[in-house]
């Protein structure tokens, strides 16, 4: 789609990506401010810096893939509305199952890495990862599904917007979930 100006034409995709990206990086900055609050817990949970990038990555990947699959299905008219049962259900359930499998693997990996590299035996990191992941998924997955359908219905391309959107929301929600979980456990 093009917006035709007097001397130039600007691609609508550009503005969709540009706007979504700026909202997203601002969300990332908010996540950074939340992260700076966690820095004083690093001594208590040494595996946190090892867990954190993978955890944020996983949350963004699962929600990003979900949004991208729904976006493709909406574009090729395989999926029309939120009530379309089986495709939507399978997409959501697979995201939840994948979230739990990957979180457990990641928590275990962070535990092993800090144990073997730094000699720190802190099994709590696996529970922190699991509880934080379940907390984060409770918000992220419904939000991803609803927003993808809403954007498509409003005439926007979810492929342009959902990537930045889910990573921004994912970062803020995930770090918040970790902060809440740490305060619950420690």
């Amino acid at each position, binding site marked *: 789609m093009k917006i035709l100006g007097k001397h130039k034409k600007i691609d609508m995709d550009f503005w969709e990506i540009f706007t979504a990206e700026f909202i997203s990086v601002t969300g990332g*900055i908010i996540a950074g*401010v939340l992260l700076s609050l966690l*820095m004083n817990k690093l001594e208590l949970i040494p595996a946190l810096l090892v867990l954190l990038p993978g955890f944020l990555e996983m949350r963004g990947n699962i929600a990003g893939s979900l949004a991208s699959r729904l976006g493709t299905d909406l574009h090729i008219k395989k999926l029309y509305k939120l009530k379309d049962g089986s495709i939507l259900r399978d997409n959501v359930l697979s995201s939840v199952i*994948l979230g739990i499998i990957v979180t457990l693997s990641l928590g275990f990996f962070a535990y092993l890495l800090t144990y073997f590299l730094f000699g720190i035996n802190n099994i709590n990191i696996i529970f922190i990862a699991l509880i934080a992941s379940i907390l984060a998924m409770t918000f992220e997955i419904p939000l991803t599904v609803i927003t993808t359908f809403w954007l498509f219905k409003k005439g926007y391309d979810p492929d342009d917007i959902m990537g930045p959107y889910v990573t921004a929301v994912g970062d803020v929600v995930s770090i918040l979930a970790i902060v809440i979980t740490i305060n619950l456990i420690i």
Partner: protein
Amino acid sequence: MKLMSKIIRESWKVLIIASILSSIGGLGLKSIQDKLVLLVPLIIVLPALNGMIGNFGIIITAKFTTTLFEGKIKGRLLKTYFVRHLFKEIMPIALVAAIYISLLSCFIAYFKGYGFEWISLGKVLLITLISTITLVLIIFLIAIVYGYHVYKNNEDPDDVLIPITTAIADLGTMVIFSLSVYLIF
């Protein structure tokens, strides 16, 4: 149920590998932990930088996959109108966003009471721009070339490629970021 098991089967390995790769990048952060605690703008900029690079991985993959499924990609892959056009859209946005997060992180750090120095702003800006340009180029190439390969193998690039590009984004960001912090600060 068939779709669910297909999604899980296609995704689980690559998701675990991607997350573990990112956590290996976390070791880079751990190695500069002492500097990070003192350099608040860097802590603030990190999730935004990380997310931004990952976003481009998702956007490039999602748009390329949709275009592939619509049957609009024909001819030499990297020379198609779609690919060249997408690159011209992504790179300027990446550069402006990199400058924006550098300025914003220093601004927020200042208001949190950590003081302000032009030299620190310059260094944060330099680290962010180096990371952004390098990683956007790498991710763009991987998403397009490997995405086409995945599609030709009758797999959905949405499932396979998004975790891969975001993992490269994460690992790459952590490595380049940690290395730059180590060298520059």
